[in-house]
């Protein structure tokens, strides 16, 4: 992701997110849901899982796919295996968080489907004073299928 992404916490965005994860429409609380930090992707200019005008997108159009996944480094796709949040204080509507991330640990193990390659990413959400608000840690996994003999 880009460095120091500015993530404005907007009431309409929080409402859309609350509805999407099952808060009843009648619940008009403005509390920010515990997983809302992930929606900072909307404000990341480099986020690869958003189509952009004039650029090839790997979803279907005329054909079932039309490009390699953006930002794909080759090899199997990375699946989201784990997500962890630490809350230093609640996020509030009206503030703007600064988001930055860095790679964490990486490791491998043999699974039923093949070699599993795990990689961690740690994301810091900080307020205007530079204080931590939320710290996120995500783990992605790539499954490298077992090579069968004779292929």
């Amino acid at each position, binding site marked *: 992701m880009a460095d120091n992404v500015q993530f404005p916490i907007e009431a309409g*965005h929080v409402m*859309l*997110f*609350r*509805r*999407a*994860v*099952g*808060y009843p429409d009648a619940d008009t*609380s403005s*509390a920010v*849901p*515990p*997983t809302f930090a*992930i*929606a900072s*992707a*909307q404000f990341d200019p480099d*986020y690869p*899982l*958003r*189509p952009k005008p004039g650029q090839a997108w*790997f*979803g*279907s159009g005329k054909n*079932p*796919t039309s490009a390699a996944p953006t930002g794909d480094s080759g090899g199997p*796709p990375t699946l*989201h*295996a*784990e*997500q*962890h*949040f*630490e*809350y230093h204080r*609640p996020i509030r509507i009206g503030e703007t968080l600064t988001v930055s991330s860095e790679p964490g640990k990486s490791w491998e193990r043999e699974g039923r489907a093949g070699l599993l390659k795990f990689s961690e990413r740690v994301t810091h959400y900080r307020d205007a004073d530079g204080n931590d608000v939320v710290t996120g*840690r995500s783990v992605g996994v790539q499954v490298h299928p077992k090579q069968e003999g004779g292929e």
Partner: protein
Amino acid sequence: MAAVGDTHEAQLVDDLTRTQLVQYAGASGDYNPLHTDEPFAKEITHYPTVFAHGMLTMGMTGQALTAWLGDDALRTFGVRFSAQVWPGDKLTARFTVEGEEEGALQIAVSVVNQDDREVLVGTATAAA
């Protein structure tokens, strides 16, 4: 107020719709076609259909946790996505308060589908 030994169960969704996956894609910004694009999911990735963002399941679980414990009660929340969630699935969350440490409740989190298969497992801590 939850206490050590308490358990709580909440139905997250009865019949997960593809429309909710679209809603979540739009709100979160994760437009991976695996979750919303049937021709891509079937013909390119060879899944039977689209499947839910793991973060949608975690988001619904977070909603159930805050409905039970109160907004802003959580100090940590972490999960592993243990199986895929499909359109039509019925999901039930089970929370167990396993202990209390340094003023925080330690809560085991599990979400199962209609076949009692675990799709998400994790832990949360909340102000006691």
